[in-house]
């Protein structure tokens, strides 16, 4: 039990941490998380002010640039889509206390897998969308899965720290995609592949503007459906399936899980593969829905790391992840035009710091006591 003395004068005010012996009401964790985000924004504002910017203007700009009208809201959702999937990827791994921080690389490999279908080409360009898109999704899901399975296997068989191995695979994934983008699939020496045919792209709302005029200019694409379906499926897996029960049990107490006859080695590999596959699906959605060609920079934009924060902020709950992703989509969307360019990343980091710090309020009760004066 930690205690510290705040002031020595007048029967020193002591702050005592007491472990909570009850379940706090449902609104409490939500309030604490919101409070943490609020504190983080204040701290971020201080750094912005320190580096010569105006925090109020910056935040106002972020709000306007991401929720101001239906057009930007649609762009926000576009940015949120890959985050939903990487956050789901992180959430399932984190639930088993597997620290997959390689969602970034799995995302990129997913995008590469989908691109390979188009560019190799595994399917001719005139293939119908109904075959093209599922094939790309499957390829990306598989590649991401492989990229998650490697650290999972090393963890399960050799007890290799998955944090570092999955992170190292991020760098390897970037080099791998660079090789194809710069070399094999380069379009005329540029650092990008040729554009995908329309059949190999996810439909956008604006594609239907002719029938529904309201959709004009809206960029939201079908990848969002991947995200929402994946979130719902994951909710059922975690809370309603036998496998999900095993994952929750291993995550909370692996020794109890072993005692209950659960195969930890197999689940470690499977969960890491599923995690990688979800991130890979995010890559598919991004490459087929937004970029529509293989190109490194827009894919290597930190979606994996944002996914970690979103998963944590959503307390690993699959459905909450959708909402939180939209908030972070806004931050990233607006962040593109904010100077200095590091601000969104810094604010994300500070939000995560505040979130973890705030967690202790859920575990402990603060008690203020005045020490007895003798």
């Amino acid at each position: 039990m930690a205690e510290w003395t705040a002031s020595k004068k007048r029967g020193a005010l002591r702050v005592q941490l007491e472990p909570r012996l009850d379940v706090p009401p449902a609104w409490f964790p939500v309030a604490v998380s919101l409070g943490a985000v609020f504190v983080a924004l204040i701290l971020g504002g201080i750094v912005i002010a320190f580096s010569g910017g105006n925090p109020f203007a910056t935040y106002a700009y972020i709000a306007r640039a991401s929720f101001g009208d239906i057009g930007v809201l649609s762009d926000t959702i576009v940015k949120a889509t890959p985050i939903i999937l990487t956050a789901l990827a992180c959430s399932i791994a984190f639930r088993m206390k597997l620290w997959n921080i390689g969602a970034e690389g799995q995302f990129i490999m997913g995008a590469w897998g989908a691109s390979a279908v188009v560019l190799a080409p595994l399917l001719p360009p005139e293939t119908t969308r109904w075959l093209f898109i599922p094939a790309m999704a499957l390829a990306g899901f598989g590649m991401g899965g492989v990229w998650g399975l490697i650290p999972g296997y090393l963890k399960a068989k050799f007890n290799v720290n998955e944090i570092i191995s999955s992170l190292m695979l991020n760098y390897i994934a970037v080099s791998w995609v660079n090789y194809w983008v710069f070399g094999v699939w380069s379009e005329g020496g540029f650092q990008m592949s040729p554009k995908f045919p329309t059949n190999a792209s996810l439909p956008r709302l604006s594609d239907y503007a002719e029938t529904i005029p309201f959709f004009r200019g809206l960029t939201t694409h079908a990848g969002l459906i991947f995200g929402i379906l994946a979130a719902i499926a994951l909710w059922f897996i975690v809370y309603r399936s036998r496998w999900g029960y095993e994952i929750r049990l291993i995550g909370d107490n692996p020794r109890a899980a072993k005692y209950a006859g659960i195969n930890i080695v197999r689940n470690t590999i499977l969960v890491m593969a599923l995690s990688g596959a979800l991130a890979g699906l995010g890559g598919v959605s991004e490459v087929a829905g937004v970029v529509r060609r293989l190109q490194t920079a827009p894919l290597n934009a930190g979606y994996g790391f944002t996914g970690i924060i979103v998963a944590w902020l959503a307390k690993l709950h699959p459905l909450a992840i959708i909402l939180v992703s939209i908030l972070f989509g806004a931050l990233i969307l607006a962040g593109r035009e904010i100077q200095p360019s590091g601000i969104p990343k810094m604010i994300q980091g500070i939000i995560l710091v505040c979130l973890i710090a705030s967690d202790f309020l859920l575990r402990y009760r603060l008690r203020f006591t005045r020490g007895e004066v003798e």
Partner: protein
Amino acid sequence: MCTCFLVYLATSPLEHAVTANTTTDLQQPPLAVEMRGIVKRFPGVLANDHVNFELRAGEIHALLGENGAGKSTLMNILAGLYKQDAGTIKVKGKTLEFSSPRDAIKAGIGMVHQHFMLVPSQTVTENILLGLDEPRFLMRLQEYDKKIADLGDKYGLKVDPRTKIWQLSVGEQQRVELLKMLYRGADVLVMDEPTAVLAPQEIEGLFETLHSMVAQGKSVIFISHKLNEVASIADRVSVLRRGKVTASGVPAKGVSRQELASMMVGREVALAVDKKPKTPGEIILDVKDVHAENDKGLPCLRGLSLHVRAGEIVGIAGVAGNGQVELSQVIAGLRPCKKGQALLNGKKVSNRDTRYGIEHGMSYVPEDRTHVGSSPNLSVTDNVIMKNYRKPPISKGSMLDMSAATKFAQELKEAYDIIVPTVNTPVRLLSGGNLQRVILAREISGHPNFMVAVQPTRGLDVGAIEGVHRLLLTQREADAAVLLISEELEELIALSDRIYVIYEGRMMGEIKVEGAEPDKTLMDAIGLMMTGTPLEQIHMEGAPTHG
């Protein structure tokens, strides 16, 4: 010998606190320690409620009480680990404030904790020098190795100063703990349940050491919950019950064990258990020549064979760390079996998926309730379905029927008196006794034909212990085979039909128990076996039975 806690029959509570004579005679030596009005609160518990405690110089003072009575808390306050919420501490007449263990050590108070506070990867000397100011920077150890060896000789505490802690036996480690305190010039030694980890013969050695230390001017506080020890070692006794003093400084010779026992538990304890005679059935568990290694990779089971029949409780006696826990793990499929095998109903269960045992009627109550037996942040429901979530009605294909699971948890909650607001409460919020009820409820609800229970009553209060004993006997009635592993000999003798004694992973012998009254010869024989003498070599006059 027989008054030791044993088995309790509910009788009318007899609240007779002994008001001992605390006025000090003029001839009495000055008080080494005086604690007045100590109050310590933990969330939800009042661990010490205005406790007074006095220790005279040169005495061995036993502090008696049940698990959770507040003895360790009181002594942790004296050792500077906790800070009291109210009350004062005087050492040799001076009022002192301890804000850290360092202060307490400076005042000459040294505590030997129940779980040894030794760094396994460091040598004896390094452990003893930990936290001191000298040598200030460079650790050239030769000179200190010598000093420590000399100190050991002075008090009869033999141990090689250059050995690493993990290479020492438990008894040796305890000596290191004592040396650590003596090296710091401690005058007052607080020993927290020092005998719990020792074999009977080692206990005698410890008692000799304590006497020699007292003869050289030290004072000892001896925390225990075992009445027989207290009678044989202590000069005076203080008793705590639920954080309150029920006897303070009573001369150990002047009070009967019966009286001490009732001050400890607040009611009469009796020595009987409602165990009906029963003819055991077929062999359910058959362990044949099992060899296994412990977590450090050293052999811990060396050719162990035993069997358990339907409708009998078979006890495993042994000093902690002689392979009992590993044996249970081999049977449950949680630890590889290097040689030999364990059979359940004639089918191999060792080196087999843990799931096989679970699905074939084996239930297992592990010694570690919080780290093995339950999942602290999951709900009661999630915890009770741990063994049967693969079977209908809770399993529905690859999905779980959560309403069936909740219903099941609800039923167990009623049937086993689990005190919890709802079945959705995470089990980390449950008390030890309630948690054990959750585990037992889960293990028994599957109608096992074989059950291993490891230390099922450790750390529970009397009422809870009684409940656990009743549940184990019910299993026997229901014709299940029960393997009971316990370090409490009295418990084993009271419940078991047969007892195997193991030492360093080897079988020392088997003893049939007839009647719950343990006699001296039997206890002595078991004690000898627990320290490595096989039954054949024990010459027992009128030995009750042998295997």
